[in-house]
């Protein structure tokens, strides 16, 4: 095996780790959304968010921190990933003062908030959760980095009776699409690879990694362990 082939394999493994995070996320999200009758939802029309909230982990999408109060009962803190894990808060920085945010919470109602402030803070910042009836949406900043946090502050406007009945998640199987994409990309790479004698190595690596991703789709891996390693490498490389 030539040195260049080794480089390509290393690059494929790095990219496959990111694919692994997403495949595990989408597979878990599909399972979590099966029972949605008591699931709260976050709805922000201006940036196209209408997703369930979970109280298990930020790794499963939009996460309500139980250390804060429920909507309508005090200060609520909701976290979401900016990148990967479905990127639910990808466009959170596009919110403007006055934009509406609605939290549909079974047992409480439709709690409507209005954005009043956007702030960027250090990761060590601790959010005061004794600020009255407010909602804080928190994600990472800038895009593709975890160096800082973007905090959206909004004030409660009103609470209406729960009217909408969200349906179970019927989003396309993105996890399968990612696996197919990786397989297609790896196959094309192996066919186009200039060293004919090493093409089969790249193709076999594609097969092996694809099989591993399929396994992760069937048996999702907790992504936090992979993430912490990736973050460590990122910090090590200073990228």
């Amino acid at each position, binding site marked *: 095996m*030539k*040195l*260049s*082939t080794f*480089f*390509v394999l290393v*690059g*494929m493994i*790095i*990219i496959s780790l*990111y694919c692994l995070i997403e495949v595990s996320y989408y597979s878990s999200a*599909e*399972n*979590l959304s*099966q029972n949605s009758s008591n699931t709260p939802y976050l709805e922000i029309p201006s940036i196209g968010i209408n997703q369930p909230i979970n109280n298990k982990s930020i790794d499963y999408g939009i*996460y309500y921190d139980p250390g*804060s109060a429920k909507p309508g009962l005090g200060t609520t*803190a909701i*976290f979401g*990933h*900016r*990148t990967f*894990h479905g990127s639910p808060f990808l466009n959170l920085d596009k919110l403007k003062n006055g934009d509406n945010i609605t939290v549909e919470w079974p047992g409480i109602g439709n709690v409507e908030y209005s954005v009043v402030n956007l702030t960027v*803070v250090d*990761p*060590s*910042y*601790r*959010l*005061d*959760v*004794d600020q009255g009836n407010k909602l804080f949406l*928190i*994600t*990472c900043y800038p895009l*593709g*980095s*975890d160096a800082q*946090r973007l*905090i959206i502050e909004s004030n409660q406007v009103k609470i209406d009776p729960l009217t909408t009945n969200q349906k*179970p998640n019927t989003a396309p*199987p993105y996890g*399968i699409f990612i696996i197919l994409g990786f*397989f297609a990309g790896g196959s094309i790479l192996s066919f186009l*690879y*200039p*060293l004919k004698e090493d*093409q*089969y190595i790249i*193709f*076999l690596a594609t*097969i092996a990694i*694809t*099989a591993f991703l399929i396994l992760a*789709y069937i048996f999702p891996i907790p992504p*936090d362990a992979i993430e912490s390693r*990736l*973050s460590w490498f*990122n910090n090590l490389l200073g*990228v």
Partner: protein
Amino acid sequence: MNYNNIYLICSALVILVIGLGFSNFVSADTFGQSNDQQAWMQSTGSTLQFTYLQATIHITVHNNADHAMFFKISQQYTGDGTVTVTGTNSSSIDWSIISTNPSAIRMVNSINPAGDLGWEIDSGQTRSVSFTLVENNPPAPWYIQRGTTNNTFWPVVNDPGLTATWFLPNELNYLNPNLEVVSWQGTFFFNLKNVVSTGPRVEGIVRAPIVPLNSVLTASNPTVDYIDNEIASAQTAAWDVTLYPGQTKGFSYTYNYPNGTAVTPANRQSPSTLINDPSSAGNSSTTLPTQNTGVPWGLFVVGGIVIAAGIIYARVLR
């Protein structure tokens, strides 16, 4: 070798497997039912069972008496104090001692029909021994909680989602003040299985089934998600687990008495110097740490660059 055939065969296999996965997704979505819904552990009738339990104990004992003493261990420990014979339907786990190092001797005064074992320690001597216990007769069907018996003493096992079983590593000090426990290390291993292969998935917090008091949790595999300090004198190892239908997971953990280097739980953040900083928002009792909500994609870009570099280098080689 004809690589074209390899390509075709492997491609067909991958597409077949992905197609099967996709068809499962579609059928679950279409019929609105899935065997993979969430369920929670129950104290009785749980679908979760211990299928294996093992404990390896290393202990160093000093004899303060003016004559030789024996450090003894029993083939059985029971919750209600009743000695039972291995293999019978007792009210607690029937431990079996499978190995001793150095080899133990059989005690002359045995309260156990299966025989008690022990080591002789001379006056003033400090001796280290180890022994391994396993549950040799897992009862069916409910291994977690056997019948209605309240098992409260080590090494019986309670429901992992609710509580753990406590014991004192230095109980020897109480039983025989002449024998002083210098150090003690217990490594425990257990398997948990979701015995219902047709679903549902079970999730919950599993606490270590056996927890020594006044000891330090020094290792765990997988890394504990947190340490439960509800019992003030115990660092109860706790994992957040998900077990799919038919799945078995193994857990091991180690406690040291009286001292040791504590393990760091997976969810424990590195200490923040700003927690009590007056300049931070609010006070520490009503504040939340901001969670890590982004996966840096710098390495992703590096991966792409490495691949591109490999291809360019290959072109140069050719």
